[in-house]
């Protein structure tokens, strides 16, 4: 789906998924702790643990929170593409120590190191695992709930409210630009390369003005309901259940133990 559709779908998922009403404290705690462990696993050379994290988060996202697979895969598309490219380069050109293959080239010898391949594999799974943690959080928790968490961990109120407003503005921008772009197309604008550039320029220029105007009206409307500079969010989620929090802590401990047990298992070590 298109870039802006993705934004809309992620936002929508945050409100319509099966875990939407669960405590954001629980979801954030799980997601961030798993993320930290996943990233640490990279420097401790374990790729098994990121795989475990990936499977767990995906299970939670797709089966428990019932997020659409289509959306989940779309979110992974570009990052996976990028990390695959990077890991191929890592595997082929980086590393030191034991070599796997040595290919003679006219000007030099191209050595592929076991360490490079190992790093590539660890990096790939670490990234995918981290992404799954992040996507779990983003797809199940709404921006307003997240803002409450941020406030609780004492992120400056100004930053939090700014993010909330910017978030809202992004959607306003997209809506207005979509309307204007459709209106242009219906009047057969945008045919021919030069024309397309000119029409886009007109659109962008007008877009800023329109969004500014609407933002102004929204601000006036907020003032009319007593806005005093602080965005108060209604907390309508339950307190986190102690049993679930305990489960998460146990899971994290399990993961940490697994890191140390599976460290330095290289695929190459078994193959050769």
């Amino acid at each position, binding site marked *: 789906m298109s870039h802006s559709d993705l934004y809309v779908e992620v*936002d*929508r998922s945050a*409100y319509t998924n099966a875990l*939407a009403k669960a405590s954001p404290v629980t979801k954030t705690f799980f997601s961030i702790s798993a993320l930290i462990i996943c990233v640490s696993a990279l420097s401790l050379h374990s790729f098994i643990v990121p795989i475990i994290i990936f499977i767990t988060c995906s299970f939670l996202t797709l089966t428990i929170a019932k997020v659409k697979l289509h959306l989940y895969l779309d979110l992974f598309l570009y990052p996976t593409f990028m990390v695959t490219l990077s890991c191929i380069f890592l595997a082929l050109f980086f590393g030191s120590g034991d070599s796997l293959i040595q290919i003679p080239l006219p000007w030099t010898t191209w050595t592929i190191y076991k360490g490079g391949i190992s790093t590539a594999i660890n990096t790939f799974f670490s990234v995918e695992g981290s992404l799954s943690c992040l996507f779990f959080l983003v797809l199940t928790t*709404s*921006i*307003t709930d997240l803002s409450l968490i941020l406030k609780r961990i004492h992120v400056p109120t100004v930053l939090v409210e700014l993010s909330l407003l910017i978030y*809202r503005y992004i*959607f306003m921008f997209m809506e207005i630009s979509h309307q204007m772009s459709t209106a242009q197309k219906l009047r057969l604008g945008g045919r021919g390369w030069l024309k397309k550039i000119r029409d886009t320029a007109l659109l962008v220029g007008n877009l800023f003005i329109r969004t500014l105007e*609407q933002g102004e*009206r*929204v601000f*006036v*409307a*907020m*003032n*009319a*309901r*007593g*806005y*005093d500079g602080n965005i*108060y*969010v*209604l*907390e*309508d989620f339950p307190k986190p259940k102690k049993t679930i929090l305990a489960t998460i802590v146990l899971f994290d401990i399990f993961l940490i133990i697994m890191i140390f047990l599976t460290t330095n298992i290289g695929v190459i070590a078994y193959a050769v």
Partner: protein
Amino acid sequence: MLFKVDNLTHQYSDGTLAINNLSLTFDKGERIAMLGTNGSGKTTLLNHFNGILKPTSGTIYFEDKPLEYNTKALLNLRKRVGFVFQDPNDQLFAPTVKQDVAFGPLNLGYPQEQVTKLVNEALTIVGMNEYIDKPPHFLSGGQKKRVALAGILAMQPEVIIMDEPTSSLDPIATSDILHLLLKLNKEKGITLVLATHDVDIVPLFANKLYILNKGKIVSEGTPKTSFSNTELIRKVNLRSPRIAHLFEVLKKENNLPITDELPLTISEARKEILRLIDQAVKEAKKEQTQY
């Protein structure tokens, strides 16, 4: 008097004189309609009632005290005088209906539990309870208008000002909103001020009508008296309600003996038609007996 506007003039920064030496008063519990074409100054006038705009000259009095424009005074004013904007998209900004309706009460500093209660009550009044967790952009125009109204009702205002409440609403939605407003006025005594250019809804709702033209009041009175002045209505580029127009034509072109105050609603029209038929029948009988 609940509200008094004294020699109000408002000039925008681009030089447009939106309101030109306008004065009016209205009392608690009244249902006031401001009628006028686009650009007559309706929205500008309404924006003065809850302090969105400040007069260039002149004073607004609320409960016989002039309005103060510091933050605290404005907050107090807006608690009691709610404003529903013409475009609900300008007003609905929160991610869910519940969060949006809660915005007003939360700003007034009420505790979370009371806010939840007020939100549920307000949504019940407008009949939008089942949409409580939905994002506003999933709703239709009429539903958005109802949620916007709920957002104001949750603040428990004494006065509700609505700018073009029925624009972009289908007939059923229009009727629903009007019934809702009338109910609020009757059961809770909420004063209503509506700005509109929809001539046909005015007689159904208002007991006081102001007609605006180019920033001035050109007519003040009840809908019945105001709409009987058909020349004025046309001069300011408005039209009469369909029913009034029909009877005006019958009076002028067909010389039917219609009352001076033209009927404005279907029930009034029905009464008048039956009266005319009755009269005609009586006169026919008289003629018969004469010959």
